[in-house]
């Protein structure tokens, strides 16, 4: 199972929210994440993990989806 720590750490640093305390269903939009900031965040995650997010990947809409995406990238880290 993927280590969830990097995902939580990243979200904590990037958005200033403790997602462990938040419901996985929390909408990213409610945390001030719009399409532009999501673009920037996905790029940062790609750089951090050295993995390219597949262009077909649907953009995460909730905290849970974002955590899942980061975990997937971390697991795929070469």
């Amino acid at each position: 199972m993927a280590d969830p720590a990097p995902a939580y750490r990243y979200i904590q640093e990037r958005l200033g929210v403790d997602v462990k305390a938040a419901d996985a269903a929390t909408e990213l939009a409610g945390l001030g994440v719009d399409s532009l900031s999501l673009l920037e965040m996905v790029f940062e995650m790609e750089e951090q993990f050295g993995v390219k997010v597949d262009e077909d990947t649907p953009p995460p809409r909730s905290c849970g989806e974002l955590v899942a995406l980061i975990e997937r990238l971390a697991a795929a880290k070469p």
Partner: protein
Amino acid sequence: MSARRVAVTGVGMVSPLGATAQASFEALLAGRSGVRLHAPADAPKPLALPAGICADFDPAAAFGRAKAGTLDRYSQLGIAAGLEAWRDAGLAPAADEDREAWGIAWGTGVGGALVFERGYRDLFISGRERLPPLTVVQAMNNACASHLAIQLGLGGSCATYSVACASSAMAIGEAFRRVRSGAAPVMLAGGSEAPLAYGVIRAWLALQVLAPGDAESAPRASKPFQRARAGLVLAEGGAALVLEDWARAEQRGARIYAELAGYGESCDHGNLVRPSSDGQARALRAALADAAMTPQEVDYVNAHATGTREGDSIEVAALAAALGARAAEVAVSATKASHGHTLGGAGALAAAFTVLGLHQGAVPATLGADADLDPECAGVAHVTGAARRGVRLRAALTNAFAFGGSNAVLAFRARGAD
């Protein structure tokens, strides 16, 4: 002269003196300095210089971390100032009315320099191949204006003026023309700058126009009109005014701070860096004529005076030429002594301070000039020592004179001065 008048109904500012217009103005009147020794920790070679930094401004608190991360600092400062002016004018943030003719005019000299610099660092130093996807839209000079237009639903003109140190004064002047002509009932106008990128600082150092200083002397390193002046102090900041059709403002019961009555511009067409008193005087005369204002009405001038050896005395000569015998009686101060030179944002800071001064009957002093006024800058009534409060001001001018020779002068009248 047009029958339509232009009211200033909102003021906003983020400056080295404070994170709001009122906090900045109070600090200015109290004689505080927002200039500190700036030693960037990530500079590849050691670097320390006096600079004006908006230390009280917290972008994460203002926008949330996610949004703040998509904005260059010049946009962060500008959007915060613009939104403050909007709130101050009592206007709703979202468009629940037809704002298709409303617009924004913004000014910035160097725009998104910090984002550019981050990109170059990634490419050349870190050896990366890819840049963050928002690099273009963060760094572009009209990013700040567009963010404000989007947020406030402004559907008319959205233009950014890049005229070095006259950028935001010209933006306010152009916005003024749009309101006075009837093209726009409301315009948000101002400018912002965040020039403290390592490369930008090095470029200014190369030009040999920056004031030196250490930790102790930095707060007084900016010395306009003073014998010991040795150059300008780079600073970041932003300011904005809401300009509104006077009849509209009265009808909705808005607080009117002052009237923007005239705008004058000129080009020295002589030298890129050495200003010309003739060119400046032409802009001053044009502003007075545009406002149908006589020199006798002018009680205060917020000078461009940046603290350079040549520039300050040339500006006094321009005031003497344009205002004639009245020049010797006109209160003049250079607020850059307190906050440094915000380049493209400077005209907006000057305008915002002047509007607040007209409204509150207060005149800021030139910090440090009480002990060391330069006889070469004699010819006007320099405000030195403590700021003046409780004075009756009828009209005031603000000067913004740019490298490249572009000059912009705004002429304001106190409400009910006529």
